[in-house]
């Protein structure tokens, strides 16, 4: 989540594809924020809603004077630092293990790119969300990966980037996209669960869709979710090894294309499937019976 401040009056909060435009109201007794009711945050992430709720809870029942947005306002701009690629000390080769996230290389927090002050108007649709830049090792080669939730038609100078590393034991191969500079676009929010959110995504030069499971580490308690995702990744490694060695005749889970980590985000890329079962009621009575037995006996296996 990043904040864009327009002078002192307007605050733009973004989280994936959602924007909240806030007006910073100056009041000696009760300074508070007023935000646009036209932009729903119902599908925004829980951390984002929690954050917004926290800052909006400062003042209640305070009258807000109406005001019009001035499109001629001069915006603050944040100059983007030149991206010179990974620093030598962060290079990962086949014979070394990833040593963590220290240093200012690939784990540097995302940089906000400068906004074009002469860009069109103030419609929310033209406001972009965030882009993530990652790199990972796949079969011995170091590859850069850009991941974004922006529209592919979005002006690139409005995108914000974050760098991710391949997890140290990542041995999965990504789909060949015919381009050394791989980019992954988050195109549609699918669902959120106990671990993180799932987005439909596609690589830059292909229209094949994949699923990206994302964990954002925005607060200390999110580290548990990160650990859950990393545990899941290890299971995918086991599943893939079993499938490649022939111990599994067929895949029993979506194919995994790798896992990536950053200072505040982990991403797991998987094959995109059609849909989930909504309930056991989607099955016939006999199927439900078998499913319930299976569920019960999973516990049996665990404890015997």
């Amino acid at each position: 989540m990043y904040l864009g401040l327009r002078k002192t009056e307007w605050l733009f909060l973004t989280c994936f594809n959602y924007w909240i435009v806030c007006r910073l109201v100056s009041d000696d007794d009760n300074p508070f924020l007023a935000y646009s009711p036209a932009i729903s945050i119902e599908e925004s992430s829980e951390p984002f809603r929690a954050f917004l709720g926290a800052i909006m809870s400062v003042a209640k029942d305070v009258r807000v004077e109406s005001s019009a947005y001035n499109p001629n306002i001069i915006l603050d701009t944040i100059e983007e630092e030149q991206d010179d690629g990974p620093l030598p000390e962060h290079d990962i080769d086949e014979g070394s293990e990833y040593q963590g996230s220290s240093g200012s290389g690939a784990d540097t927090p995302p940089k906000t790119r400068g906004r074009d002050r002469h860009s069109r108007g103030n419609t929310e649709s033209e406001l972009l969300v965030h882009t993530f830049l990652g790199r990972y090792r796949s079969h011995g080669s170091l590859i850069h990966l850009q991941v974004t939730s922006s529209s592919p038609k979005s002006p690139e100078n409005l995108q914000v980037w974050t760098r991710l590393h391949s997890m140290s034991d990542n041995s999965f191969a990504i789909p060949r996209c015919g381009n050394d500079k791989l980019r992954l676009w988050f195109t549609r929010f699918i669902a959120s669960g106990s671990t993180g959110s799932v987005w439909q995504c596609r690589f830059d030069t292909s229209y094949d869709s994949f699923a990206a499971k994302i964990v954002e580490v925005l607060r200390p308690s999110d580290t548990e979710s990160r650990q859950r995702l990393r545990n899941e990744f290890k299971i995918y490694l086991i599943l893939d090894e079993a499938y490649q060695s022939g111990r599994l005749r067929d895949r029993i889970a979506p194919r995994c294309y790798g896992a990536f980590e950053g200072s505040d985000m982990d991403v797991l890329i998987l094959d995109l499937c059609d849909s989930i079962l909504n309930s056991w009621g989607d099955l016939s009575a006999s199927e439900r019976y078998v499913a319930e037995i299976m569920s019960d006996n999973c516990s049996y296996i665990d404890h015997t």
Partner: protein
Amino acid sequence: MISCRSDVYKLVQALHSIGVVHEDLEPRNIVRTHGGGFLLIDFSESRKHVCKESKVQYMDTWFYE
């Protein structure tokens, strides 16, 4: 088309056969593939189990009784 009954069962059995228990088997963690089959997802609670192969075989027999 493979029935859901046998399909989901075989998925769980195969998972156990390689030493992994799902630990969170519920409808939302079963996905339909574009081909009409099923796959398991969300292994965040999964872990390795240590039961003997014979017990997995016992389950196999027990299910078909």
